């Protein structure tokens, strides 16, 4: 019944006295898949990872790794982390400061009781894959952040674990190193084909490495899907507003000035809201040939370097929209806005329709 990757069934974690970190979470990670758990701080994502690793025990629910149950409170089953055969990279890498890089990487193998020559061979091998052969004699404190991360990855991978768990592995790296580190991790993961779960609060991390992304908020799964899917078809207001940069505009559907453009295409009820991504609404001075069009007044123009965004007032709503590169807008001007895509959310915050212009 359980797949060969990781399976989590109806997982609930309550921290005493009554903090619900995870609320009935179910999840399947395919063998060889790179799954990202994305959520704001306090969403329960790290708790989920720690439960998979065995560092926390679930309150309810079952965890399977490679088809085998490793935690099931109803059967008093709990396999400790030592026996789960997982590799984990901690947020601050947790390299043992008293050991050289070689000994850090060799540590898991030493525990397995491998011979000295075998350990040497496998450490060299993994060090080569991760490009850290020259660092083996150094101490962790003599390494840069990016190098420490590679060593942590090497230590996690050297024992060929069934699954690889990464807890915010990029958050301690500076912006430039981060981008290369993401690519690198993704490449290594793909070439080894290891089932991987990465936890992050940063959507750029998630989009860069994830085959699929799980959006978690307040201990509940909001949506699971491929990166593009989450962006194009957010299941609810939380995913819609959490994913995408700049964030989606969300306004009251009624009396916002946008009601007119969706009328006839979707029925708008009480408490409904409309969501528009800044990159899917384009402001220009020239009237467009057709589509979903509204007019408004420019309030403010901001540049991000490559693109310009404008805050435009349409009726009572104020939207952040992309400026047509051929137009240059200034505050007070009347502009046309063409909507490529408009999402409609019901009073519960669920997306019920998407109108494509």
């Amino acid at each position: 019944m359980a797949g060969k990757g990781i399976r989590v069934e109806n997982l609930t974690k309550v921290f005493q006295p009554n903090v619900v970190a995870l609320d009935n979470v179910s999840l399947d990670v395919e063998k060889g898949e790179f799954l990202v758990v994305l959520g704001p701080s306090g969403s329960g994502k790290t708790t989920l990872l720690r439960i998979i690793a065995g560092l926390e025990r679930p309150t309810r629910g079952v965890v399977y790794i490679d088809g085998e149950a490793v935690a099931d409170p109803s059967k008093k089953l709990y396999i400790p982390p030592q026996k789960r055969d997982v590799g984990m990279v901690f947020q601050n890498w947790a390299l043992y400061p008293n050991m050289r890089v070689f000994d850090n990487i060799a540590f898991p193998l030493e525990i397995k009781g491998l011979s000295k020559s075998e350990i040497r061979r496998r450490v060299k091998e993994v060090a080569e894959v991760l490009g850290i052969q020259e660092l083996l004699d150094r101490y962790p404190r003599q390494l840069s952040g990016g190098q420490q991360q590679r060593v942590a990855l090497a230590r996690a991978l050297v024992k060929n674990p069934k699954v690889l768990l990464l807890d915010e592995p990029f958050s301690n790296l500076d912006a430039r190193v981060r981008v290369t580190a993401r690519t690198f991790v993704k490449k290594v993961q793909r070439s080894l084909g290891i089932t991987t779960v990465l936890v992050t609060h940063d959507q750029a991390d998630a989009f860069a490495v994830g085959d699929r992304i799980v959006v978690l908020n307040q201990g509940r799964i909001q949506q699971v899907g491929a990166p593009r899917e989450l962006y194009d078809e957010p299941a609810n207001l939380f995913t819609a507003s959490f994913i995408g940069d700049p964030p989606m505009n969300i306004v009251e559907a009624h009396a916002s000035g946008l009601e007119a453009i969706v009328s006839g295409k979707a029925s708008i009820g009480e408490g409904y809201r409309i969501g528009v991504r800044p990159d899917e609404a384009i402001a220009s001075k020239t009237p467009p040939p057709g589509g979903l069009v509204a007019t408004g007044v420019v309030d403010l123009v901001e540049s991000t370097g490559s693109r310009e965004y404008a805050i435009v007032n349409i009726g009572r709503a104020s939207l952040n929209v992309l400026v047509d590169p051929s137009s240059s807008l200034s505050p007070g001007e009347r502009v046309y806005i063409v909507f490529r895509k408009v999402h409609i959310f019901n009073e519960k915050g669920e997306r019920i329709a998407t109108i494509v212009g």
Partner: protein
Amino acid sequence: MALGRVELEFSARVIAASAVVVVFGLVWVIPIYGLLSGSLKSLAEVQGTPVLSPPSELNFETIARVARELTGPLKNTFITVLPVAALATWLGSLAAYSIYRRMDRVSDSIMVAIAIATYIPYHAILVPLINLVKSLGLYDTLPGIALALLTYYTPMAALLMVIFMSAIPRFYIEAAMVDGAGDLRVFRRVVLPLLGPGLTSTMIFLFIMTWNNFYIPLLLSRGYETHITLKIFSYVGQSGTLYNEMFAASLLGSLPPLIVFLSLGRYFIRGLQAYGGGVKA
């Protein structure tokens, strides 16, 4: 100009601080000076002159004679106190590790029990302690004194080690567990090396405490040869005190803890810093 004043104020504060340090230093040095000066005087001079007056001549005869008399007790104290300090530190760090690993109601109450045990006065357990050591056939033996000291100081070691342990970030232990290490290996390979300064501090502290302990050896010995503090006490006679010899004995007896502290003091301070600032990773 403003900068100049700041510097001036700064140096005034430095001077004031230095003055305080010097005063404290003098207060601590005066007894040692008294011991030294007293041991260099003859019995008549030591009884006839003020304690702090310098000796009329540098006569090392008393010190040399007392040193010969002290050889046995000093050796006995060393072979009692060193293993006790080491073993108590080791046991204490094991206890501290398991408390740190559990962090639940059980470990909390054990912790409270240890803290209470640390504050039990000797006098409260005097009779049962003597009876226990006697029933083990260890009365008036070095192992008997060592056993009592060990029992008494292990809770203190555990308490200190819990404090040092709490400065070790938990993720090192968790990383080692995920790497496959069982508790003993986590302790030996990951925790112990990180505890270095804490272990040294605790051991130094216990060495000094047990070295200076008077009451336990007194209760568990017939003569004065088992522990240095007893030997020093033995110079207080019923019919009179040989002050110059007692000074010399006190001086020689307090040298080992002093040397230990002076030579290992920076580890002691490093340990305290580790507690304050967390372990540098």
